[in-house]
């Protein structure tokens, strides 16, 4: 529960950055290395690790689980999308979910994850829960990677005021040997490999005691093919969902459409602007005082040339300017958003004024004059 507190205030040994941050950074580095798409944090407490992970651009699904709903609720709103996220939705999709429940119970919502983290969790488990834990995490959830961190009791004599355990809720604290034998046995049983490391270096001369926090990184040996392996998965959900946030993303048609229309309208305006100022140069209206028009370094040269090609040339007819969609599609931003020309046409259909055959965006000339 309060895994972050105890070490910060030690006077003899002070970790910089604080040990809890080092643990989070360790997880973050791991994420950067393996690029998992789906990550679950068991015992997520006040969600601070989840908050850090939501910025990792590889992650598309984040889940948190804790036995105490109130602790999760306190800061869960920091996991909501920011208002600005809606202005420029990102490419990736992201869903963050918080569940209330115990790591001793299986729930199908925890299936299919790439990485499961258990930071300072196991020492809070009662003996009965600890017994079920490997089966739930390694047997049932069976992610590619599991990270487990726990206090190293050998380090405790170096910490002032730690009588028995570092936190009153700890049910046990293991020595390096105890943790490693538990981890090796678990890994063997569920066909994982495990490597040991840690954060919080011991003072020089006392290297023997090991890291203040010991960490085991478990990697599944045989990469499973999909979710086919376990046959008897319970379909019954036992966790209660307390929070769910779906981030706006271009993967969502609604936001993609918005982004495409913005870009199309914006591009069309640029082309129109350019066309109109060209026409003005030839002096169509002696009454009007020549005005300085926005310069054309707006888009790169090669694009300007592209526009000259046939059937991409914008033209004026009556009170309207027609800007062929092919011209708009040649702009890299539009191109990247839509991928195909067909997709472009589909997305803007009915949302942008088009010529009767649907091949060009239609803009009114009038606007131009009023705007200036």
């Amino acid at each position, binding site marked *: 529960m309060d895994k972050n507190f105890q070490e910060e205030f030690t006077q003899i040994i002070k970790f910089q950055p604080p040990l809890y941050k080092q643990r989070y950074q360790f997880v973050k580095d791991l994420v950067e290395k393996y690029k998992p798409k789906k990550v679950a944090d068991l015992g997520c407490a006040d969600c601070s690790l989840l908050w850090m992970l939501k910025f*990792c651009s590889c992650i598309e699904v984040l889940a948190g689980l804790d036995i105490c709903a109130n602790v999760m609720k306190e800061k869960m709103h920091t996991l909501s999308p920011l208002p*600005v996220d*809606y*202005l420029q939705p990102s490419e990736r999709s992201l869903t963050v979910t918080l569940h209330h429940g115990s790591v001793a119970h299986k729930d199908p919502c925890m299936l299919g994850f790439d990485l499961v983290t258990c930071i300072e969790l196991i020492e809070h488990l009662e003996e009965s829960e600890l017994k079920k834990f490997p089966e739930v995490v390694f047997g049932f959830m069976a992610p590619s990677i599991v990270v487990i961190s726990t206090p190293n009791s050998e380090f405790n004599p170096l910490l002032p005021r730690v009588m028995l355990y570092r936190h009153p809720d700890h049910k046990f604290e293991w020595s390096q040997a105890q943790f490693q034998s538990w981890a090796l046995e678990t890994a063997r049983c569920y066909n994982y490999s495990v490597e040991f490391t840690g954060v919080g270096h011991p003072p020089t001369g006392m290297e023997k005691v090991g890291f203040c926090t010991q960490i085991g990184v478990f990697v599944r040996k045989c990469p499973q093919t999909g979710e086919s392996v376990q046959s008897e998965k319970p379909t019954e959900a036992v966790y209660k969902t307390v929070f769910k946030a779906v981030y*706006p993303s271009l993967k969502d048609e609604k936001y993609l459409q918005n982004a495409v229309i913005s870009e199309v309208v914006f591009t069309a305006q640029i082309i129109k602007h350019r066309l109109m100022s060209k026409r003005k140069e030839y002096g169509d209206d002696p009454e009007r005082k020549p005005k300085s028009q*926005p*310069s054309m370094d707006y888009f790169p040269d090669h694009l300007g040339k592209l526009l000259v090609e046939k059937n991409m040339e914008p033209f004026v007819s009556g009170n309207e300017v027609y800007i062929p969609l092919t011209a708009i599609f040649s702009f890299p931003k539009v191109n990247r958003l839509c991928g195909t020309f067909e997709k472009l046409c589909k997305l803007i259909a009915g949302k942008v004024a088009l010529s009767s055959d649907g091949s060009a965006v239609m803009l009114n000339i009038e606007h131009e004059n*009023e705007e200036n």
Partner: protein
Amino acid sequence: MDPPRRFCPPGPGPGPVVPVPRGLRGLAAFSPRLPSPGPAQPRLPSSPFPALFRRLGLEERPLERPLGRGGAGNGKAPALAGPVQQKEEDTGAALGALPTRGQAQGTKPVGKGATVSVGLNFVKIHCQNEAVYQYHVTFSPEVECRGARLAMLKEQHAVTGDVMAFDGSILFLPIQIPKVSLKAWRRSDGEEISINIQMTKVLEPSSDLCIPFYNVIFRRVMKILNMSLVGRHFFEPAQATSLQKYSLHIWPGYAVSIRRKDGGLFLMVDAIHKIIRSESVLSVMQTIHAQSQRTFQDECTKQLVGSVVMTRYNNRTYRVDDIDWDKTPKDTFTLASGQEITFVEYYSKTHGITIRELDQPLLVHKPKEKLMPQGKRQLDLVLLVPELTFLTGLSDLRKNSRMLKDVMWEMIQSPQQHYQRLTSLLRRIRDSPEASRELERWGLCLDTDIYRTQGHILPVERIILRHRSFLPAEDVGWHREVAKEAPIAAISFNSWLLVYPKRLQHLAKDLLGAMRNSSGAMGIQVGQPIVQELRDDRIESYVRSIQSSLGSQNKVQMLLCIIPNGRDDVYGAIKKLCCVQSPVPSQVINAQSLTGHPGKIRSVVQKVLLQINCKLGGQLWGVDIPLKQLMVVGMDIHHSRSPGMRSVIGFVASMNHILTKWYTRAVFQMPHQEIADSLRLCLSQALKRFYELNHTLPMKIVVYRDGVSDPQLDTVLKYEVPQLQKSFQTFQNYQPSLVVVVVQKQMSTNFYCLTGEELVSPPLGTVIDHSVTSSGRQDFFLLAHHSRQGCSVPTHYICMWNTANLSSEHLQRLTFKLCHLYWNWPGTVRVPAPCKYAHKLAFLVGQVLHHEPSAQLSEQLFFL
């Protein structure tokens, strides 16, 4: 402790009846007998914008420059024979008395007279708990860290229960617990701490002391409903409307707060919007660069400084105070830990954001001076990366009327739509078990609908012109009448100057012709002007020509200039010249307003003529003012958007008893200072002038003070009232009575009228002076203006000082009358005319002149 307040349902109960002063009876005689209200008629759709400018804090279109741009307020509305509410003849006799603090029920008497049922954007909160219990909590040994105190108390929930509000020493609980001493354990060092909890007060659940944490609770409710807190309000960006053409998003949202009013606890809800650019400040800068490379930096400063930006990585908003062109994201800053880090690295590490443009300048935000807790140093500057910030609001939108129109169109809400958004919020709270539970924990229960009550309608005012008086038709104003009939006093102009550049010659010709045609009906004689045709439209040409003409021609009464579109610089130069250096009334007309069909030009010219008449000291129209020996004063303050600029106080005082002559002053004061220091000087000079003109001093002075927010109300009492009183000492044995009324127009209060099926705007002159008013104050809401579309936002008047013992009814009537007297608009405006004049004056001085205007102009409305 607070005395118990019971809420009496409003109704025509037997209120104490006071003898009616003669003046008011006289007034009542004007009130006509009118048919009783018929079924609600649909309002005619017409130009929707005046109502919206107000919502944005923009003005009704001033006549002078922007005419023809928005097309607003051109009097296009056809005459509307709408239903006029019945006005009682004997309003005066039936009116209630002045409320006093000690009134038994704690509620204010309901004014009788023509009543109207009005809905407000208030939701009544019922307190279901008996009481809220306040406890004092001590820790021994002392625990310094507030967070630790909170955490330790939280662990005692077995004793205190789960529901608590605790600020570190004062604890509020919905339950009563005996005095206890608890043992706790400090996490940091394991020390044993004893916590003593002792009850200090039993509070009424609607007590003022509870309001702050009720508001905290309600913020939590809004968060549970998935709304984002931006600044002080909540928004739903997921429900945004996007205007792709302008790269704008409009977020719907709510402004909510819990307040205690005379009628009990209320939730005030307003359905609002936030406008935000969907492109970053960096791309705005790139656009500016593409358009004006040479003046790029100046242009950026002009467009960005003073605006509010939102950042990509948190919910916060910052005002841009400067741009640091020498810094880039590659520069470093110091973290709290003392570590030096570049902006690029910081955003990449903590927010996973990659800054793409490494050579952009940084935006500078200077946090307001705040008293920080001891030891903590205040952050000097906040530097923001343009690529990661987004502009909010409408700062540069005014330039582009089409954009403005489109944006307005999206934001416009009829009373019915506004109401639906409020009720949908209430429904969402009810439907979310978690949100409801949050309120229930404190025994708070929201009504399922908005608050409805009775208001009364002030009688229609008779408009007085020179030859006749008339009752204006509801909602329409008196545009027609003033264009066709003689004003109270018309000044003819015989010796005047007409300046225009050669290429606008044709416009000048049209203008002169139209002036001749229209002036006759108004009783204004327009003589042949001295014409100055300029070769070009450079500022120097205008200035030189005007200067030489003013120098050589004796007694130029006024000058009229035609300037090309969008030349604010020329406008500024002419105004500076004519208001400060060589004082002469001046009228500047934008060329665009003179282009169009003849009908449009005629109406523009009519307005110009009226405005010139005011500037020359003429008087357009009046209303009956029964109070004798009265002086009315209006005050407003203009704060500059650019930092370091001084604020300007506009001061306007009436000089005759029908309130059609005004004495004006504008004085500067230090930045963002709201207290008007130079008040004494202004008022004593105004009194001197009043004496010179009337050979007597006013015995009643009513001051309308605009631009004061709630927290500043006390400074009005503490500083401004004494200053005003001091000015009386200029004269011997002079002790007039003084009334000071604070005028608040940016109130998030809405009135809806409940007649008929749909909610509509209530009639003009609707007043509510009970239930939603503040306890212990003489205050009221008055809806004086008509908004053609959108909601009706009444103006809130708070009487801070009243030695004239002016009753609420008299004050309301006087206020409403004054709302008829703004000569730039032949209709009612939302604040009393002197306030509006003071606002215009302060705005011109603060925005354009930057100098005190010449004293020679102090008796003309030169700033219209």
